[in-house]
């Protein structure tokens, strides 16, 4: 098991079409090994579609995704997981009735071997494996701060805790690349801060590459080394957080054409960003101010 040294993610010319609707249009970016890369954009920009392609849930129409020397497009989800790509979900995707510990143990699936026969007959292999991985899972639960809930059914816990359990489950996979789909959506300020701390710490300690989709700009600015901005399935900007914040195309996408600096041409299609998206964008930018203050 010699793991390739370069475990960066390279997305090139990624296009996804659903029956005529182009959800992603030639998107490309790279996540440097050990860095946090944020993927932002208004609702419907194609961020979640991108995640679903990266984790193998959707098939790419065109383009490629390379991770540590392996082409991911065309692999089924469980093979991608086997390469060390873990993800969380925007909406909770835990087993409600299983205990938190068992939910986390599912994260160990790719690292364990017991099948129907060895688990059913409780062969020594299965018992030993179970004991060792439960110990590790408890460590991870402590690390993320959900260890007091280990025996509770996951569905009985508050939303914020369940979000953290999702992160813990992804970390239980011992991933090399972590895909986080809106990890702090719907959380209050304290919960957000705490989540950001855990993510930053995990990245340091475990030497992870992280791809982050997030609407909370404070979180993005604090965590990300690099940002890619999507709008209507296209990559409209990229760079360091501070560069992106000043980018006229980004302002236009978030705030509407009226806010774009004078002198740029207003006919390049992004003028269509009207309606609820605008207010949403405005609020997000305001959040930024509060969060970073």
């Amino acid at each position: 098991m010699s793991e390739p040294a370069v475990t960066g993610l390279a997305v090139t010319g990624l296009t996804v079409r659903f029956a005529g609707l182009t959800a992603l249009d030639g998107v490309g970016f790279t996540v440097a090994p050990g860095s946090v890369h944020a993927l932002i954009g208004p609702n419907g920009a194609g961020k979640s579609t991108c995640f679903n392609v990266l984790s193998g849930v959707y098939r790419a129409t065109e383009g490629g995704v390379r991770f540590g020397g392996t082409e991911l497009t065309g692999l089924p989800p469980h093979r991608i997981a086997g390469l060390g790509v873990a993800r969380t979900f925007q909406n909770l995707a835990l087993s409600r009735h299983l205990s938190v510990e068992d939910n986390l143990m599912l994260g160990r699936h790719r690292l364990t071997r017991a099948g129907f026969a060895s688990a059913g007959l409780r062969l020594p292999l299965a018992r030993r494996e179970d004991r060792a991985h439960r110990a590790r899972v408890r460590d991870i639960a402590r690390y993320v701060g959900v260890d007091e809930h280990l025996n509770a059914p996951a569905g009985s816990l508050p939303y914020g805790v369940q979000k953290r359990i999702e992160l813990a489950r992804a970390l239980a996979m011992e991933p090399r690349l972590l895909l986080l789909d809106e990890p702090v959506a719907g959380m209050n300020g304290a919960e957000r801060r705490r989540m950001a701390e855990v993510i930053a710490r995990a990245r340091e300690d475990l030497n992870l590459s992280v791809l982050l989709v997030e609407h909370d700009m404070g979180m993005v600015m604090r965590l990300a080394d690099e940002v890619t901005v999507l709008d209507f399935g296209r990559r409209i900007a990229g760079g360091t957080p501070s560069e992106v914040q000043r980018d006229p195309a980004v302002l236009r996408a978030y705030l509407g054409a009226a806010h774009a600096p004078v002198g740029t041409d207003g006919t390049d299609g992004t003028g269509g960003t009207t309606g609820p998206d605008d207010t949403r964008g405005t609020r997000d930018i305001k959040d930024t101010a509060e969060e970073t203050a």
Partner: protein
Amino acid sequence: MSDRRWLLPAAAAAATALLLVLPFYLGTFWLQTGLFAMSAAIGAIGLNLLTGATGQLSMGHAFFLAVGAYGYVYLASDSGPHLSGLGLPTPLAFLGAIVLAGVAGGLFSPIAGRLRGTYLGIASLALIFIGQHVLFNAESVTGGFNGRDVPPLELFGLRFDDSPELVVLNVPLGALERLWFLGVALLVPAVWIARGVLRGRPGRALNTIRDHEVAASVMGVPVARYRAGVFTLSSMYAGAAGALLALVFRRTVPDYFGMFLSLDYLAMIVIGGLGTAAGAVAGAVFVSVLPQLLTRFGDDLPLVAAPGSGGVSPAEAARILYGAAVVAVVLFLPGGLAGLWTRLRATASRHRSARPLTRLEQEEQPV
């Protein structure tokens, strides 16, 4: 919690001991009823692995029971003028019947792996009709409409039959008593293996496939392979149940393995509780004992008449009753009989020790 960990193995041992003592006291009627219940329990555990734990509906369970029952008869019988058979030693034939049912499940598993939930239910319905057609028409193997005699099992020189008399502690042990011990010897490992599967790595994968298929696959679970695997395992359980049932009936008839049997099994796991071995056993006992009770005590009950006399027959009355039971469980008892037990236990422990209030973390305190 942890200081009472011995409780469960102790209870299991006590229950097994009780099961082993019962045939010394029970009469023919109760022995037969109990054997039906044990066979049904084994089959229901299999269906619960598939439907309860994985969320894959199967209407074809009766087909795999038939494969087990007829498989045993075919493998164990000697070839005659009209009927063919392999004449294998009977224990080998019994194992062969389980393997055969597993192979049948495996052959269907490319479909079982790809179809989700109710779609699999519809596809597996086809198995019933194919099964019935084969059972009625492949006469040299199945005996057609009249079915076939089941050769009694012979294990380590012990015949599971009435003929060589066997008296233990002044109690003559006939075929039913002996089969009872066989039933216990099959049921206990069936429960034990199912619990191991459900609480181990495969069980977590199966439960997550049921709860959130996409999450399971991105966590590294090959969903189709697990669905195919659990389908095969579940048909092996059905095969064992079918072979045991054949030994109890002493004759296999094709009519028995129809759609109603599949529905009975679904009723068992819903009433007993989805997703656990204990639930399957509880439901199997309920569903298979009820018609027997109504037949036996039907004379004393209003509205239940002897079969053929025009009123509601005991079998029909039983169907109506557990149809009502299914509705009642779905409405009032999510988790079934097994869930009721857990709830009672939770209430009891709450009475013992008042639960301390969960403290909010400091930053979760309302401002």
